[in-house]
């Protein structure tokens, strides 16, 4: 189809008055991959998502979605995208099926294919036997599954998921992960924003870590961990005063540390060399990278 990238952003800047929400972002999402936008609240993830549907217009930079240049050709791009917003905006007084019917029309599915598309979405959302239930009678997990399948009713080439599992319990979360993973296996391109590390680690082929509107690192999760946090970390536990000492001593010895709240993690303690601290060894993970790169405190 003449393009290998589903999304291409170059030097994109978006300001709201004195606040720069996105400050020179480069982002590539190759077709057929799942890219995770990982960052703390306020890093600019949601603004990035809005830029991709031209609900925000960039002040500077280039954005291409499925080969269409934004904002001028955004409507063509939107016709082939599915979007799951962070905030549930289902029509709560309508039934499950009616919600899907409305979107089948909004996404211009021809009349002859509409019924089949709705059935497919019901199966995907596992809501076939709840098709006639009003949305305000559904559980939180069911609503979220409906919200995701609503975005897939027209078989989009690209799916934008903004914090797909925020505020849900672990059982519901793993259910949604299965849904997203199935979508990924079917070859659909996905851009997903999240601040759950595990979500990004499990689902994303590539992760882009954002902080203050910029990309601070990008790559496959395992590669990011190796590059930024090394192989092993040592967890040192103790009372707060002891942790502060450990942090200071390790820092003075040139070791990298990060706080976890209940312990200090000393990073890059690879090999079996003595570190001088008593603690538990564990493999380094994406959370270490995240905290290292986005800062220990969030303003």
């Amino acid at each position, binding site marked *: *189809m003449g393009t290998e990238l589903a999304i291409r952003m170059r030097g994109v800047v978006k300001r*709201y008055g004195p606040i720069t929400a996105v400050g020179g972002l480069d982002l590539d999402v190759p077709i057929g991959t799942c890219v995770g936008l990982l960052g703390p609240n306020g890093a600019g993830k949601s603004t990035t998502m*809005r830029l991709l*549907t*031209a*609900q*925000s*217009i960039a002040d500077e930079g280039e954005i291409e979605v*499925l080969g269409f240049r934004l904002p001028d050709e955004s*409507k*063509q791009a*939107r*016709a*082939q*995208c599915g*979007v799951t*917003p962070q*905030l549930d*905006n289902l*029509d*709560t*007084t*309508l039934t499950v099926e*009616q919600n899907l*019917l*409305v*979107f089948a*029309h*909004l*996404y*211009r599915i021809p009349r002859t294919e509409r019924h089949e598309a709705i059935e497919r979405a019901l199966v995907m959302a596992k809501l076939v036997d709840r098709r006639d239930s009003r949305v305000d009678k559904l559980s939180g997990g069911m609503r979220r599954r409906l919200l995701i399948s609503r975005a897939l009713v*027209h*078989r*989009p*080439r690209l799916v934008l998921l903004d914090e797909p599992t925020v505020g849900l319990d672990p059982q519901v979360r793993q259910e949604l992960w299965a849904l997203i993973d199935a979508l990924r296996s*079917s*070859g*659909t391109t996905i851009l997903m924003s999240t601040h759950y590390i595990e979500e990004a680690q499990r689902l994303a082929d590539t992760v882009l870590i954002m902080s203050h509107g910029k990309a601070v690192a990008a790559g496959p999760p395992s590669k990011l961990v190796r590059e930024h946090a090394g192989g092993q970390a040592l967890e040192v536990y103790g009372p707060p005063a002891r942790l502060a000492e450990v942090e200071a001593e390790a820092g003075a010895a040139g070791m990298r540390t990060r706080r976890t709240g209940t312990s200090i993690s000393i990073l890059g303690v690879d090999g079996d060399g003595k570190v001088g601290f008593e603690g538990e060894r564990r493999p380094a993970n994406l959370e270490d990278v995240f905290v290292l790169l986005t800062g220990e405190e969030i303003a």
Partner: protein
Amino acid sequence: MAAVESRPARLGRLERSALTGVLVREVVNYSSYWRSSTFSSTVEPTIYLLAFGFGFGSLVSTIGGYDYVDFVGTGTVATAVLFSSAFPAMFGTFVKYSFQHTYDAILAAPVDTEELVTAEALWIATRAGVYGCAPMLVAMAFGLDPSWGMLVVPFIGFLAGYGWACFGIMTAGFAKSIENFSYIVSAVITPLFLVAGTFFPISGLPQWAQVLAQFNPLYHCVQLVRDAVFGFAGWVDVYHVAVLVAFGLLMWRIAIYAMERKLID
């Protein structure tokens, strides 16, 4: 590959499929709230009709050559059109924008703000055209004689309702909070509603008020409905239609501007 073939379809402005999408959403939603909506849009003007018709009607039997009930019965058609278009547009738009985030979902689909506003206004105008007939039907039960011109009344209601719907959407687009609506209701809608020739002819008003009434779309709607019911009066009705068309076009463009400012940042 789960992708839809990329069609080289060129997507323009005000596309029918985009308008249809938004309209389908409204029609499907309407099935869940038509009772309350129909109640408020028809009962209120009917109460005005009965209160004025019988209250005033006992003092005044004819006005400007019409039976008073006939005069008010046709005048409150415009009231019903106003109430069933401006208010749902103001509150509905604000709620969908601010609380339900419906418009975020619609604008993520291949629908532009222009299409969204147009479709919403078309839908509200259609309802207003139908609801506007309620007082006329009630007046018929009280002796208003049927006429062929009455068949045009829903279309007059649609035309005026389109302008009022866009006015309501515009108001919601500019409003910072839903409380701001009180200013519009008290300072704009209430005066327009009273100085429209609904309950008394504007010829009894001071000269300046009569001049101002020419800028009141509701006045033109009242006159047009009366002429439709009792007999068209030639060019003056063309003038009334022209004012309503101009009102509709102006409000439509401003409503789109206001909503673009609100929805696209």
